[in-house]
């Protein structure tokens, strides 16, 4: 016995090989970890970007108006009948309420802009409210409607760059005709004036560079194009000269055109949009948007700048001022976006919802589930347990495996040709969608079920046969229950795949714009509908920017559905899994 710990004698070459082996193992583990890391990171980026884009769509800015439902407005016949109530001018009611909120707005053009705060489709919602409760006629009623999509985005800070500048002096304003003159006791406008000067200079510089480029290009273009280019160069050159001239502010004022940031001054419920800014930074000229235009030595005033020039955004300064005023007066509230869930599709993003698509998906999935799961499972049971192994069954097996790899749009074409053209089933209907998706899901279900059946040990079949069970009893009493978890998992994965499928549904017309949700009954199966992924596809194509957020929100909802589906699959597998 010795005190030092005993070591095993190791030959040198063995030791070298061992070290190499450990290095190889380490390399492999590192590669695996890196792969997982990259995959997780990409997934996080994906979900994160969708979530950051989509989460704002779950809230809505709503306009809360007290509307007067005068009988002569909403009940033209005066008899309170449904027909009469349907003919009421509800949009006028909404317009009256807005005019009351902004009594100073009278010009036709301004009124038209003002009514852009909401979409006229809300009149229908107001009518529905009245039809629901005719007792409202003749009373005033608090009506909540979503703000126009662009203003919603503006208030969520996703449409423009803006900021509020600090002010130190006291503001005095006086009007002379349409022009309001503003003066501050300190040079509060200085920083702004410098910025405007610089941005004008930069803009002029850009124009001059453009002119130089065009002049250089002049030599290389065909003679026929030369006059057009020359004209362009001249136009830019003139614009540049004009800008430089304006930036020098010959009368001491810098003009604020639509190409530079907008400046808005607010004080005590009044609001002015500046058109000229004094170079000394103490005074400014503008137009009255809200209020009388008279301010005496107010120290509570706001200098609000929208950096995105008016010409490059979809909301005018006027609308921004009115919206801010409504927020100030607490007539705009932020709420959960119920429209996203309670409405079907709409041309107006603020009213567009996924209800129609969700119902369409549910109806389509019901058809798909009740067709593909039983047919698929029993096909697999027959092929796996009963069918003789010969050329015919081999051929069938190869074809089923190939079907699983067929591009889904092919199933759509098949559905169009067979279900719609041959059998004359209605277009855009969940029934046809479900049939097409069943075709697509069948191979998945069959393959998963066969794999699950194969995994049941043959000893179980032998045991059942050994005590005198018939083949069918052996399959249905013992094999199928043991294969159930695998079958469930496979079926649910197949259905989840179908839930996320777009391409085949495009072919059978489920891509149409459908403003009404299908009913969740038997009739719903033949009503025109669309499904979640197609809705996402449609919205992603929408012209309005607000559809971007709704697209992401719909993706989030679809993802949640998928996760739910898979969670159910995992739960069922755990629940039914039995060991042997």
């Amino acid at each position, binding site marked *: 016995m010795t005190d030092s710990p005993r070591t095993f004698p190791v030959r040198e070459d063995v030791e070298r090989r061992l070290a190499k082996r450990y290095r190889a193992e380490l390399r492999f583990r590192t590669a695996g970890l890196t792969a997982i890391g990259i995959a997780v990171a990409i997934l996080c980026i994906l979900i994160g970007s969708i979530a950051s884009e989509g989460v704002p769509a779950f809230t809505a800015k709503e306009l809360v108006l007290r509307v007067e439902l005068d009988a002569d407005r909403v009940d033209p016949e005066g008899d309170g009948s449904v027909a009469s109530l349907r003919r009421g001018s509800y949009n006028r009611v909404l317009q009256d309420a807005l005019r009351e909120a902004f009594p100073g707005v009278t010009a036709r053009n301004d009124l038209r802009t003002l009514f852009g705060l909401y979409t006229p489709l809300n009149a229908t919602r107001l009518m529905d409210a009245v039809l629901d409760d005719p007792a409202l006629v003749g009373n005033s009623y608090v009506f909540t409607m979503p703000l126009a999509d662009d203003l919603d985005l503006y208030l969520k800070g996703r449409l423009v760059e803006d900021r509020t500048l600090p002010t130190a002096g006291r503001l005095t304003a006086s009007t002379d005709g349409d022009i309001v003159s503003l003066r501050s006791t300190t040079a509060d406008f200085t920083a702004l004036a410098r910025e405007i000067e610089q941005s004008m200079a930069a803009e002029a510089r850009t124009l001059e560079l453009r002119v130089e480029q065009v002049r250089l290009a002049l030599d290389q273009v065909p003679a026929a194009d030369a006059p057009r280019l020359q004209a362009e160069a001249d136009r830019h050159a003139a614009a540049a000269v004009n800008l430089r001239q304006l930036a020098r502010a010959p009368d001491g004022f810098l003009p604020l055109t639509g190409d530079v940031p907008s400046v808005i001054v607010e004080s005590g419920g009044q609001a002015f949009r500046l058109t000229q800014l004094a170079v000394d930074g103490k005074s400014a000229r503008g137009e009255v948007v809200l209020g009388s235009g008279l301010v005496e030595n107010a120290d509570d005033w706001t200098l609000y700048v929208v950096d995105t020039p008016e010409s490059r955004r979809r909301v005018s300064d006027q609308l921004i001022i009115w919206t801010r005023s409504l927020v100030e007066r607490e007539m705009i509230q932020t709420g959960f976006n119920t429209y996203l869930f309670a409405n079907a599709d709409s041309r107006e993003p603020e009213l567009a919802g996924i209800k129609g698509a969700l119902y369409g998906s549910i109806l389509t999935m019901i058809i798909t589930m009740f067709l593909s799961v039983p047919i698929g499972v029993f096909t697999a049971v027959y092929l796996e347990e009963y069918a003789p192994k010969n050329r015919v069954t081999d051929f069938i097996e190869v074809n089923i495996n190939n079907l699983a790899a067929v591009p889904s749009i092919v199933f759509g074409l098949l559905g169009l040709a067979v279900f719609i053209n041959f059998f004359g089933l209605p277009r855009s209907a969940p029934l046809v969608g479900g049939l097409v998706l069943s075709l697509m899901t069948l191979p998945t279900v069959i393959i998963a079920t066969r794999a699950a059946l194969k995994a049941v*040990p043959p000893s*179980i079949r*032998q*045991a059942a*046969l050994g*005590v*005198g069970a018939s083949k069918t*009893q052996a399959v249905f009493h013992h094999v199928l229950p043991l294969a159930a978890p695998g079958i469930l998992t496979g079926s649910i994965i197949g259905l989840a795949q179908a839930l996320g499928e777009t391409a085949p549904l495009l072919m059978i017309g489920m891509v149409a714009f459908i403003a009404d949700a299908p009913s969740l009954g038997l009739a719903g199966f033949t009503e025109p509908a669309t499904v979640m992924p197609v809705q996402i596809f449609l919205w992603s194509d929408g012209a309005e920017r607000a559809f971007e957020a709704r697209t992401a929100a719909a993706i989030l909802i679809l993802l949640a559905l998928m996760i739910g589906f898979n969670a159910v699959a995992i739960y069922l597998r755990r629940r039914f899994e*039995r060991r042997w």
Partner: protein
Amino acid sequence: MHDAQTQPTVYHKNSLGGSDIKVEVRDVSVSYGEKQALFNVSLDIPDKSVTAFIGPSGCGKSTFLRCMNRMNDTIDGARVSGSLKIDGAEVNDRAVDPVVLRASVGMVFQKPNPFPKSIYDNVAYGPRIHGLASGRDELDAIVEQSLRKAGLWAEVSDRLQDPGTGLSGGQQQRLVIARAIAVNPEVILMDEPCSALDPIATAKIEDLIDELRENYCIIIVTHSMQQAARVSQMTAFFHMGSLIEVGPTEEIFTNPLESRTQDYITGRFG
């Protein structure tokens, strides 16, 4: 041609040992596809005794065993010819329903294969599908009786609803025997029932086989010569798909007529 095909089976003089013949086998051959696995086996198996099939791996003894309850039907491409009568009734007759046959010819497999259900359900499954019990009480009685016969009652009577797969290997095998007994068979086939068990569990199964012999015709395939010697009254030696020699166990082990039997028993091959 291989000599196994031409050589006649060797019978010992008093091969039946005086018992009734339960199974009468004449010229049974089995082939799987192109390959013939069993060549013209003829044999008489006595009732209320244990008959052991011994022989090296792949000699066809399991294949032959599976002929008795037509389990070969479940294998694609298997063909069986010849005559196999149990109590004078032809097994290979097309008119015979294998399901009915298997109710009277129980089988115990190499690896314990209880259903992944409760102990009770394992035993009750056979009586249920064959309609042997007309009520809950009757079924309970059959289950208890079968478990008692299989020597398992004392160990599981208080946990009949536990899963059968939770028992130990030896208990599982006895459960499987109870399951086979529950349908009241006349013949019990055992395909190497102890090969997956430890010696203690094996001893228990062997004792059980010895007890069951009083009521059933038991046919057991085994790789263990000692086991064959311990439990069986008759032994048949198979080699290369042919039955080489059959006779009372003592004689086969002490005084085989064939040199190949001698060689196998003494461990010179196989």
